[in-house]
């Protein structure tokens, strides 16, 4: 894709994200009905759950790109995985912040060492370690290979986090979407929730685009620096020969 077309797409996505955010805010604070038992604080749900969704989506992208990298050894997969993991960690951090803020007035505690909460914290540590690994390992190919293996192994925790509230007794509420009999949301709440998911997904892809562009820029800088240093060496050798 030419650079100009790419910029136009990035601008359009950015504008769409901005508009979707404003509509999302209106829906969350003005349209969504107030939940009976928790009151207004339940509205945290509309950005707590989408943040968790974006974190899972990011880690899934890391997983897929890590597998693809190990198969094809193409650097572009490593770039996408690296970018996606950073966004995933940011959204997972937001989940870990907004969760306790929601829990305090509703459960009367900031934190419980329940399976869902503990496993999510472990997931956050795994991807934090993934980002640290990327910084500490030298050699592009080696770093990409190690990270890919770590990215695949780390993802094994995601289904466990998702299933934890179904498998074990947990203080965390049961799923409200696809949670079986007795679960569910008011139709207006469901509409706002899905719109919020859409907005956060759009935000994720926009951020991913920006992050990939930066990663590619950093690689280009290294490549040009290497080429320049070779050129300089050639010129110096030429001068010595003369």
């Amino acid at each position: 894709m030419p650079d100009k077309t790419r910029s136009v797409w990035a601008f359009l996505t950015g504008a769409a994200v901005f508009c979707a955010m404003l509509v999302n805010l209106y829906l969350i604070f003005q349209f969504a009905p107030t939940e009976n038992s928790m009151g207004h604080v339940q509205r945290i749900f509309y950005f707590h759950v989408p943040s968790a969704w974006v974190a899972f989506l990011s880690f899934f992208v890391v997983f897929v790109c890590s597998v693809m990298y190990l198969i094809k050894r193409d650097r572009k997969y490593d770039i996408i995985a690296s970018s996606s993991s950073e966004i995933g960690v940011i959204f997972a951090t937001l989940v870990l912040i907004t969760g306790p803020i929601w829990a305090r007035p509703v459960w009367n505690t900031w934190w419980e060492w329940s399976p869902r909460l503990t496993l999510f914290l472990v997931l956050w540590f795994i991807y934090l370690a993934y980002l640290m690994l990327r910084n500490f390992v030298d050699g592009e190919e080696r770093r990409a290979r190690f990270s890919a293996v770590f990215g695949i192994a780390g993802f094994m925790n995601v289904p466990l986090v998702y299933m934890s509230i179904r498998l074990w007794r947990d203080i965390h509420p049961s799923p409200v979407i696809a949670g079986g009999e007795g679960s569910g949301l008011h139709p207006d709440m469901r509409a706002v929730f899905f719109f919020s998911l859409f907005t956060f997904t759009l935000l994720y892809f926009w951020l991913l685009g920006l992050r990939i562009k930066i990663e590619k820029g950093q690689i280009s800088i290294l490549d040009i620096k290497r080429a320049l240093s070779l050129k300089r060496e050639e010129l110096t050798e030429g001068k010595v020969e003369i």
Partner: protein
Amino acid sequence: MTIKPQHAVLTLLVLLLSISAGYSQTARYYHFEGALSKKDNAPFSGTVDLEFKIYKTPRAEQAEWRETHRAVAVENGKFSVMLGSHTPLKLSFYEYYLDFTVSPEDVVTPPRRMIVGSGYNYRLWFLFAAYTIVWLAIFCYVLILGKKQRKISTELNALRHEAQEISA
């Protein structure tokens, strides 16, 4: 696309303003139950016209909001109305003072009384904190990405220029 800091800050401001607007308008209705008695202290039964006024302080003269409810049924002295159903109620969740006048005139007008939001209103602060943290984090991240992008772009241009000079 390059993200300029002023654009990101402006966007952040718009978002924070919209939450403030949403936050301040969350009290759209207030369910009010009251009691009326006649001048001889007997509970009143019948229909009355009620004009409600909300003030910021117990002695304020300027009403923040007013609304009239006509032909309200009063049974054994008790009535209930939904304030905000005729005139939009835009109050933040702090204490306010409610006054109402009654007609017919043989019904006793109660004194100004304090009203507060419902029991879970204190929880709004948690909602506000969570919301602010989420959007601040996202916008700080976007700002950082924008800054990195500009730095890389400048460095790339300088390196390309250097490469051209060496080639020449």
